[in-house]
């Protein structure tokens, strides 16, 4: 029986420059932030990032790691606009930008998960999504209706990061909050090898059902290659019911982004050491 436990840095060590990485969660909710922080510590570059974006996207943009960004939105939820993402867009520092409708992003991941080249939809047609991503193609229904639909291409990932509440050491995982978001699709859109799951706590398999009903067990071990125990690993995004978003820290993050000097101080204070150093600095606030 495979024990898939590893550290964030061991997971990141399997990646290479130029890879396509999908990041689960939604906005500033249940983001695999300890894995994102490990990615920030690495020398990896030229990455394609696929995300319902929050501070994951902001931090990776600020660190200059993103060559191509695929997103439906980028927001901090309680702070509507992500400051680093805005700066990167306004300064033109992301070489390639793919802005999708939220449902199109789901469809691209789902197509990859089902190993289909595309899935059809109406979402996006007529909007500037198709103008701004001229690689997009339409497909004509082969049936009597003959309708022209948008063919969302599969968003196949080289690696994926998700953060859940509990799992066992083999990667059977459980979400205890109100929404799985699209975490299962991020994992399934990734070829076996680099599907990384961080959790608040690793527990014995038979403990999973003591925490919640079987409906919470949407991730099974065939979908996961590496399990990282990361208590408070989604900080400063939320991880309900374990913790809410750290709103005061998020405010500090957003304020610091306004000026290069204050941002450097933020990086020095929180992001220049290990994950343990980060958690210590957060606790010392």
């Amino acid at each position, binding site marked *: 029986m495979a024990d898939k436990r590893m550290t964030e840095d061991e997971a990141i060590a399997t990646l290479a420059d130029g890879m396509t990485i999908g990041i689960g969660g939604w906005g500033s909710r249940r983001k695999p932030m300890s894995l994102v922080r490990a990615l920030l510590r690495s020398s990896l570059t030229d990455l394609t990032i696929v995300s319902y974006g929050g501070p994951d996207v902001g931090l990776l943009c600020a660190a200059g790691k993103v060559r191509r960004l695929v997103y439906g939105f980028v927001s901090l939820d309680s702070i*509507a606009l992500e400051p680093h993402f*805005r700066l990167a867009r306004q300064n033109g520092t992301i070489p390639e930008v793919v802005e999708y409708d939220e449902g199109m992003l789901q469809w691209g991941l789902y197509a990859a998960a089902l190993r289909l080249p595309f899935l059809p939809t109406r979402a996006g047609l007529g909007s500037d*999504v198709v103008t701004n991503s001229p690689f997009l193609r339409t497909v004509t229904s082969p049936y009597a209706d003959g309708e022209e639909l948008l063919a969302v291409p599969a968003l196949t990932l080289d690696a994926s990061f998700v953060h859940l509440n509990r799992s066992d050491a083999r990667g059977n995982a459980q979400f205890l909050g109100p929404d799985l*978001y699209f975490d299962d699709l991020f994992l399934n859109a990734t070829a076996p090898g680099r599907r990384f799951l961080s959790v608040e706590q690793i527990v014995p398999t038979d403990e999973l059902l003591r925490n919640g009903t079987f409906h919470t067990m949407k991730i099974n071990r065939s979908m996961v290659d590496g399990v990282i125990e990361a208590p408070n690993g989604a900080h400063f995004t939320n991880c309900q019911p374990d913790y809410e978003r750290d709103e005061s820290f998020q405010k500090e993050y957003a304020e610091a982004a306004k000026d290069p000097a204050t941002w450097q101080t933020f990086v020095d204070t929180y992001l220049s050491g290990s994950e343990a150093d980060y958690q210590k600095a957060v606790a010392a606030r």
Partner: protein
Amino acid sequence: MSDITLGEICVTAVAETFRGDGEIFASGMGTIPMLGARLARATFEPDLLVSDGEAFFVANDLPVGGTDKEIEGWIPFRTVFDTLWGGRRHVVMGASQIDAYGNQNIANIGPWEKPKSQLLGVRGAPGNTINHTTSYFIGNQTSRVFVDRVDTVSGIGYDRAAQLGDWVRTHHEIRRVVTNLAVFDFDTPDHRMRVASVHPGVDLSEVTAACSFELVVPDEVPTTRLPTDAELAVLREILDPRSLRDRELPA
């Protein structure tokens, strides 16, 4: 009841956009749209489903920000997408820009390649507008918001929908635009935006001045209705006791 505020008039006007919708998801982005959906459900449109803004349908008349929920259903984002692609939803979104045919922009200001101001991205606006009824609430109508041409079409308007075939033409509906000045609809032969009513105390010239395109103006422009005493009571005492409705509007 007296001293009716602009916020209360706007909430009531948003609520009116849901009249006749029946048993669908009434979804509001932002305080006034959310209050509008809840007010409609609490008064004249009782079959609507309203959410807590997170992942649950709530059966009770929940105050904005309230946590004492009577949950009647689970609506995580994936189910929201299923519901909206299935057409069982009417959303009231915001708009950073809107044009005469109801094309809406929430993505960015300036050229998309290198925006002057990056906003949210298109979010769900393309899928919402092509799949089900959409209305907009704009708390600060100016000629820079009501524009000739939006910088990035996020939600699609009538001119774009008309080019997309029969299915889209049949299902696309931008029902109304509610602003701090007036209510607009698209009930014109070519679906150009029309002044449906002007809020009490607002002159029509203020409405046309705060708009870069030519509005269709009927011979008789009605005044936006005031909330009834019963609606005001629900709004003030139950749905929004902290008066958050007035904070979304210019002072």
